[in-house]
């Protein structure tokens, strides 16, 4: 709780936190939605925002607001799945490379850097174009996780490298602690904060990727996500038809979501960085 209070002192964190809370509330509202998100023509078509349909309705006869609540929920779920599994890969890669060192380290980091610089979009498109349409959103999350770990593995590795130099590694090794125990007991407390701060960035990346793939028609368009909602609006020419509420809703929501996630991640990583922690010791001018 102390950490949270410290973070709240940062304006960036406050703004990000408030927006993300609002977005989360929207996502939770999906559970009380009066509509089934996969059904069409449950409402009159193309209505502008009104009291009854606060964000209007779309050309498929769906309520834009309630559709949005499902979209946020699903997009966040994909992001969490992707971020969760990619963190597991990143932790394993980072721990092994950093702890074992030597040739294995160089090899793993070579692979790691390859994933880092490869143009992922064409490769992801290649994959999803093969399983087009059959992709459940869990599957999409898993695929994204296979490609989203390399940066964080690098960060974790360098943290392990610096921890290895510390005394407790030697003491622990001398006192007969097994490697596994050592890694989990001594290193994890230091790795967890990094994992958490990269988690948010990774979620943001996954949401962006989902939108991109959906726009290209490569995901299951039956499931409402921020990407598919946008894709429907575009393929129905919402802009040309003047149905701005339909197009703007996912655009504005995703911009808010990305900005708030980013603010949170910047604020948290500043908090975790010892250099900026010293900076936070506010300098008083006379």
């Amino acid at each position, binding site marked *: 709780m102390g950490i949270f209070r410290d973070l709240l002192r940062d304006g960036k964190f406050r703004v990000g936190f408030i927006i993300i809370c609002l977005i989360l509330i929207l996502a939770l509202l999906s559970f009380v939605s009066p509509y089934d998100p996969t059904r069409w023509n449950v409402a009159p078509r193309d209505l502008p925002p009104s009291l009854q349909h606060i964000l209007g309705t779309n050309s498929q006869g769906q309520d834009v607001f309630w559709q949005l609540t499902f979209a946020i929920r699903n997009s966040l779920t994909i992001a969490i799945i992707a971020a969760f599994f990619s963190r597991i890969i990143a932790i394993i890669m980072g721990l092994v490379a950093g702890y074992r060192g030597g040739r294995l380290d160089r090899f793993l980091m070579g692979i790691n850097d390859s994933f880092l610089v490869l143009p992922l979009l064409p490769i992801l498109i290649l994959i999803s174009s093969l399983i087009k349409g059959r992709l459940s959103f869990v599957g999409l999350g898993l695929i994204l996780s296979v490609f989203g770990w390399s940066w964080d593995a690098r960060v974790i590795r360098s943290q392990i490298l610096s921890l290895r130099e510390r005394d407790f590694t030697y003491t622990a090794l001398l006192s007969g602690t097994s490697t596994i125990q050592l890694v989990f007991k001594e290193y994890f407390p230091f790795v967890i904060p990094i994992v958490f701060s990269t988690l948010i960035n990774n979620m943001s990346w996954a949401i962006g990727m989902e939108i991109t793939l959906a726009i290209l028609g490569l995901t299951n368009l039956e499931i409402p996500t921020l990407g598919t909602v946008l894709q429907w609006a575009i393929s129905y020419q919402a802009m040309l038809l003047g149905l701005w509420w339909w197009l703007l809703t996912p655009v504005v929501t995703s911009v808010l979501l990305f900005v708030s996630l980013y603010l949170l991640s910047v604020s948290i990583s500043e908090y975790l960085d010892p250099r900026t922690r010293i900076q936070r*010791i*506010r*300098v*008083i*001018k*006379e």
Partner: protein
Amino acid sequence: MEIIKAENLKAYYLLDIGGKLHSVRAVDNINISIKEDEIYGIAGESGCGKSTLIKTLYGMVEPPLNVVDGKVYYRIDNEYKNIFSMNGSLESIRWNYISYIPQGSMSVLNPVVKIIESFWDFIGSHVDISDKSTWRKNIEEHFALLGLPTKVLDAYPHQLSGGMRQRVTIALATILNPKIIVADEPSTALDVVAQRAVIQLLKEIQKSLKNTIILVTHDMGVHASISDRIAIMYAGKIVEEAPTSEIFENPLHPYTKYLIGALPKIGDKSYKVSAPGAPPSLINPPSGCRFHPRCSQAMEECKVNVPELINVNSEHRVACFLYSKEREL
């Protein structure tokens, strides 16, 4: 004639840690005056505020460091000017009038440009260097004078050894022949040979240019060989000040005695131990005489009152209740 004077100088690092205000009293009520054509040494253990003091004397006061009280005067054109009310013009007298050799000058040169470029930047900011070939000749002569090969000018900093870089920094700080040179541990990070060369260099510069050098080092051996006068600092305060020979032959303050005792003496193989314990935290220094927790001669009075720096003779000052009853108010 005094060229630089500090009066009741107090410079604190003001910090806000977790909402609480802390001040590190690194320079606490210091009065000194430094004469023309002398090497003024400042000695003391690590963390006692030596660097802070000479940064303040040099006028390089940036947050979190703040001058809370007192004044520093430079004599410019026979007039004493308080540097803290000079504002912008302080920049303009740098390098011409006063220059600075920082502590740990291993990485003080811009790593991506050649040495000569650093000279152009420093010189060009203070004098007109449109006649580059003459200036280049001047710089080369200056290098020759300091025993530095001129081809160093076309090298990058990382190509030079630590000792070489230190000497280049000294050359850079003396190129415009300033009246005052402030040097912070110029020889500390070097090996013994380079150390001697650097000290010798400073000595020669002073001899030929007749300027003032303020030399900070915790190494009493260096002070013995080069300083004319020495001030001993402890926990943000000057505790003793006297000409070098007087300090070594007749040290008064118990702390000075410890410092000198820590010197290996010829013929005496047993190193004398330094004062037990470590210098105190400057956030919360001990009451009374700040040295009292480590002083073997401490009296009741020492825990309560702060001894004032008083003259025991015209050249020798000390702040200790063993020699006077006067206290700081």
